[in-house]
Structures are given as structure tokens and as C-alpha cells.
């Protein structure tokens, strides 16, 4: 699976006028990223509190009906909770993303009222996941090496030293043994153990 931490670096929100007088755009964006990365309920509560009344007000205007407006609140915020991982802060502010999620839910609801059909055509018209995000080989590689580094950092320190020495500083096993003042045999066995672990970890997560 994709590492959300990388995609959800909220420091750079495109199109965000850093105007402190404005809505708490940055805070909302941070909260949405926390939901995406950690399923953080407190962060979601923040979004919920901010958006629920506003979505309801929009729904009442749109449908002229309180019950349908509440359905829109439910549809939209359920999608925010369940689809937060599809949000990209570099594509715009959280407010814009939540707006598009709400617009789509409202579009489907209006169609349902007219044709009495349960379909989610809005997903075809306004996909939440853009193509280029799916098939970008550089992006994938980048993610993967970040992932491998994460795994390496979980190894015992002695094993980390060896892996980093051999694979990142490109020392020979002999050089490394000398550098760490340990026998070459120990370098070899630590490396073997470390690679076993990495293989297990990475293999597991690819199932």
C-alpha cells in the first residue's frame, strides 16, 4: 500500500492564500491529513464540527427539505472519513476537497430523486483519484525507497549500521568490519539477519 505520510505533507497547500483573516484553512487541511494518515478521530471531530452545519445549510437550500439535508451531511462526512486517504494537499485546500465530495453526493442525490435510480455517476464525472496519481513510476519508486528506509529504521541498531554501511555508504564488508571494529563474520551474519527481516516485512505488506 501507499505511504500516506509522503503524500500528505500539508506544509504546502496549493492555492492557499496564507491570509490569517480567512477561514482556518490550514488547520482544516492538517486535520484532514491526520484523518488520512492515522484515522485520527479527534481530527475528524474538528472537521465534523466545522463542516456539518455548513453542509446542512447548503442541503436545505439545495433540496428544500431538512431530512434530505441531513442525509447529505451523512453521505458527505461518511465519505470524508472513508476517503480521506485520497486527498492530496498539493491539489488544494481541504475545504475545496470537502466541497467536491459534497457536490458529488448532492449530484447523485438529485439524480436519485429524478430517476429513482441508485447510482454513483458522480464518481465517473469527478473522480477523486486522478489517473496520474495511479501510474507514475517515479512516484512509486520514491515511495518504495521511503518505505524501505522506514523498515530499516525498525531494525536493531547493530543491524542498521551494517545495512546502511553496505547499501548506502557502499563500503565493502571488510571495510565495514574494520570501521566498526568487529570481525567480518559478524558483519556477514548481521547483514543476513537484517535482510531476512526486511524481506519478511516487505513481503508481508505486499500480500
Amino acid at each position, binding site marked *: 500500500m501507499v505511504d500516506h505520510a509522503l503524500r500528505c505533507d500539508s506544509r504546502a497547500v496549493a492555492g492557499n492564500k496564507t491570509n490569517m483573516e480567512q477561514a482556518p484553512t490550514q488547520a482544516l487541511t492538517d486535520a484532514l491529513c491526520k484523518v488520512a494518515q492515522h484515522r485520527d478521530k479527534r481530527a475528524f471531530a474538528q472537521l465534523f464540527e466545522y463542516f*456539518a452545519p455548513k453542509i446542512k445549510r447548503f442541503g436545505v437550500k439545495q433540496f428544500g427539505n431538512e431530512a434530505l439535508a441531513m442525509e447529505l451531511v451523512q453521505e458527505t462526512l461518511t465519505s470524508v472519513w472513508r476517503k480521506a486517504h485520497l486527498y492530496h494537499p498539493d491539489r488544494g485546500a481541504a475545504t475545496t476537497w470537502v466541497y467536491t465530495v459534497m457536490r458529488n453526493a448532492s449530484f447523485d442525490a438529485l439524480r436519485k430523486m429524478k430517476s429513482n435510480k441508485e447510482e454513483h455517476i458522480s464518481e465517473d464525472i469527478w473522480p477523486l483519484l486522478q*489517473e496520474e496519481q495511479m501510474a507514475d513510476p517515479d512516484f512509486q519508486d520514491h515511495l518504495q525507497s521511503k518505505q524501505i528506509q522506514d523498515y530499516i529504521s525498525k531494525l536493531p541498531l547493530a543491524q542498521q549500521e551494517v545495512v546502511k554501511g553496505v547499501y548506502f555508504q557502499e563500503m565493502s564488508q571488510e571495510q565495514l568490519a574494520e570501521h566498526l571494529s568487529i570481525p567480518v563474520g559478524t558483519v556477514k551474519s548481521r547483514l543476513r539477519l537484517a535482510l531476512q527481516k526486511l524481506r519478511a516485512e516487505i513481503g508481508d505488506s505486499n500480500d
Partner: protein
Amino acid sequence: MIKHHPTEQLLIQFSQGALPATLSIAVAAHLELCECCRIKVQNLEQSNAEALFTDFEDDMAQDEFANLFEQITANDDIDMPKGNAPQTLNYQNKTIELPRAIANSQLSSFVQLGKLARARLQVDDGELRASLLQIAAGGEIPHHTHTGFELTLLLDGEFSDESGAYVPGDFIWLDGRHHHSPATESGCLCFTVVNSALHFNKGLSKLLNPIGNLIY
């Protein structure tokens, strides 16, 4: 270069989800081919969001939403987006990739009439009908007027009419004021949305005319 774009008004309605489904599909397909309109729509979405989501007078009591919060967060599952496997279409001995918005809709099979072939999009949209329309090399559509409106999005190939030549991505909106007889030298594939009710109202001759029928 694409010269014909949806009007500002159409883009605004699209960004608000206020267009009928078939026209939304047409605009979405145009956006896939046209970066400048894509950026316009992103900006519109941003300002729609700002207009709705940035005032502070809040509002209703939170307690009416209390159960909802519990209900939503009780489940930790995530939704994966619908797959977007590119869909290709074979036509006139070539294979082209359809815009995603069109490819994801159900299509009937092609019905052929001379140099024209039409496949209907299976989207229930009131009086609007959307189709893929192929015109084979050297084909043309006899001179006709639009009683309602006819939207043509050129997807592949070329055609021209009295107003000039069109390239893929061109979004051509015609209504009753326009007369035209489009023709293609090398063949083309279009996405069309036609408003039918007005067509019918304008007399039976249209109905009896097999080409008029096919286009609609």
C-alpha cells in the same frame, strides 16, 4: 489547438454539479483534453468552497449531529476509488482511448447507417440523449438545423462545417440558430448530446428521416 470550449456559464454549472448527467460527462471529457478549462474548473471549485465554507456564524446546535459522529467513526474501513482502467475503442481500423468519463458509462453497440454509426450511452437523463457517433472517411451529415441543441465533442479525427475545421477536444454547441452540414475527409469519432423533445415537436419529417433519427 482546441478553439471551441464550454462557455463560462457551463463551466460554472458543471463545477456546482448543476448540469444534467450527459452534459456533465461531455464537459468532464472535454476537461480531460483541455488543460485551460481544467484549471478554470479547479478555480471555480475553490471559490465555490470558499463561498460556502468560510463564514463563521455557526449556526445550528452540534447535538443534532452527535449520533452521526459516532455512527460514522464506528467503522474504520476505507473506500477504494472505482478503478479507472483505460478503455479503448476500435473504430475505423484504429484503437483509441476514450475519455474516462465516457468510458465508464455503459454503451450500447453501434448501429450503422451508411457512413454513420452510433452507439448510445446508457444514461437515463430525461430528454437528453448522449451517443458516440462515428463518421467514416468522406462521410457527411446532410444539411440540418437544430431545433433543440446539439453538443458535439470531437474525440478523434477531424471534421469541418460552414464555420471551419475542428480538432479533437473541440466542444461545439449548436442550437436552433445554426445550420450546418458537417463533413469529414479522413473520418472521425464524436461524443454528442442532443436534446430530443424539441426535435420531436418540430414535425414528423425529422422522425421519418432515418439520419435525423440516427443522430438523435
